[in-house]
């Protein structure tokens, strides 16, 4: 009888200890999840697919382009310089990608918005020209953002195509389209 009671007490205590431990573990896990911030970012695979898509599009008129893909913070994820391109082209492509990423729009649209005479819907001057003075931006066409669930997870910039800024942008767009199935 005494032994049974001891076993019962031990068993109940055991259950308490285990459940308390479990609760503590859960609490710690919760705290751990709260301490880190998960951010969405363009992956290496995606960056390479985007770049290849842009290169293929621009190959149609034999343009050897320079392509840059930046991540959600605007840092370089991937760059490849076209044959015969100058080192300045690399920086131009990077800055196009950065500008598109940070302002979440194609640099062509951003160019219009930041023009000295740009106006809003009601015809009022918006005067965003100052954005062009920010570091790492560039007032040139050829940059397109990579948007996933309304979140700019990256940007792509193209320079050096034979057709100039408009063709640069078309190739950059073709690059983003290469991962369109992942950007639902």
């Amino acid at each position: 009888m005494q032994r049974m009671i001891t076993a019962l007490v031990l068993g109940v205590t055991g259950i308490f200890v285990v459940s308390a431990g479990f609760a503590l573990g859960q609490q710690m896990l919760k705290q751990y999840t709260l301490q880190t911030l998960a951010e969405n970012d363009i992956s290496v695979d995606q960056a390479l697919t985007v770049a290849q898509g842009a290169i293929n599009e621009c190959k149609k008129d034999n343009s050897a382009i320079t392509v840059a893909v930046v991540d959600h913070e605007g840092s370089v994820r991937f760059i490849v310089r076209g044959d015969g391109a100058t080192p300045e082209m690399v920086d131009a492509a990077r800055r196009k990608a950065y500008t598109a990423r940070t302002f979440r729009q194609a640099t062509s649209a951003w160019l219009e918005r930041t023009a000295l005479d740009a106006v809003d819907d009601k015809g009022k001057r918006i005067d965003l020209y100052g954005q062009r003075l920010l570091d790492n931006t560039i007032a040139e066409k050829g940059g397109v953002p990579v948007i996933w669930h309304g979140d700019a997870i990256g940007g792509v910039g193209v320079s050096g195509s034979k057709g100039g800024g408009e063709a640069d942008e078309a190739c950059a767009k073709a690059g983003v389209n290469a991962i369109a199935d992942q950007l639902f």
Partner: protein
Amino acid sequence: MSRMSLMLNAAVAAGLLVAAGGAAQAQSSTITSEQAMAAMRAVQAYAKNDGSNPSIAVIDRDGNIVLELRGDNAAPHNIGLAERKAFTANKFKMKTIEWRDATKAGTPRADERNTPNAIPLGGGVPVMLGSDVIGAVGVSGTRGGQEGDTAGAQAGADAIMKTLKRLEARN
């Protein structure tokens, strides 16, 4: 065999003479974007074996970037370091792991470590055409430390060399 190679040498020399006679400008070789991509894929194939996501830089003979890739979940220093390793290998015409050992503190060459942008860490491998550097590959962030980074970069440099050999065969 030796006659074959003699003939080959003669043909190459004749080709060089023709090129030199036909054009007054200086010419040099460098690596193409396609070769840089081939190097990147070789480094990635190497990295797949050790389960890492290294950052990669390929530079041309002038030390300018041809290709840069920042691996998934890379540490902030990785990409810049890959570039510096490639630069160092290009500049000193040797693997950076060997240059590191050749420039240890107290040795006659120790001062070379003061070269701006050079880095005494393994992971940079030059791409040589004879005694000419035509580019370099730098890798940072494999699992094998400096030896692993060196092996990865070597795989990249080898991939470029392979395309050169294929070109030679075609000519």
